[in-house]
């Protein structure tokens, strides 16, 4: 419960947009939407974060 860690921060980016630049935050490039969702779900579970959709083909994993 009383985790010590970062919150309100983007932990990772999952995208099907190949032009999305990697800059500071880990970026995972997915082949298609299905793979993007799978990666996003796995990352969210691994990092205790939540998946948010930027609606431009990119998901961000944020810990609240």
């Amino acid at each position, binding site marked *: *419960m009383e*985790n010590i860690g970062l919150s309100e921060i983007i932990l990772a980016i999952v995208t099907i947009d190949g032009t999305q630049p990697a800059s500071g935050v880990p970026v995972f490039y997915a082949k298609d939407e299905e793979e993007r969702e799978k990666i*996003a*779900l796995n990352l*969210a579970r691994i990092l205790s974060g939540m*998946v*948010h*959709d930027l609606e431009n083909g990119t*998901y961000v994993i944020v810990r609240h």
Partner: protein
Amino acid sequence: MGGYVAVIITGLAIGTIGRLYLLRVDYRQYPSYPQGYMVHLALGFIAAFLGSVAIPAILAKEYTAVTFLALAAQQFREIRDMERESLRNIEVTELVPRGAAYIEDIAKAFESRNYLAMLTSLITSAVVEFFKKPLWGIFAGLAVIFILSFFTKRKRLGDIAVVRPAEIFFDGSILCIENIQFMNVGHPDSRRIFLEQGLGVIIEPKDDNARASLFNIGQRQAIAHDVAALLGVKRDVN
């Protein structure tokens, strides 16, 4: 002193019954455990005892005893601290926290109930002493319990506001409840869970007083806690 036994015992009994009457376990699930029950019953008993000896002490011209009553009443303020402390300690383990405002309110209620026990036994013992009829005292005590519990009763949310179900839908990835944009939910599976199992509710205050009450974040947190306690809650715990 022998003549006061009936006075003290009647006052003590009615005061303790008053405390017991207000010690109910309900959806707030507090105090649900037998230990918590015991603590409050014991303190209620002591409060009732203090209330019931006050009149005999005055009549016996034991004025020091009466000043002790005031001193003891101060001690009951400790109850508020005790409750606040214990609720605050379990706060971190709540899936939906009660919030500081709700804890304060619960602590205050527990303190005031001891004063109620004290007042009830005081009035009961006074009636028994002056009218020499224990039965009258019992009725007076029960009346005090009912009147005070009626006046300390708080309003329900439904009294000050209209609570109505509202539609949940997604505008793109934004979760909306009627016209309120709520949060961004990315994963399609998560969205499906919201749509299938979510219950949207809109609370509309009836007047300006209600608006001011509901404006308070503590009130909202308390509502969230009680709703979660009643309906259950689904969230990630890590």
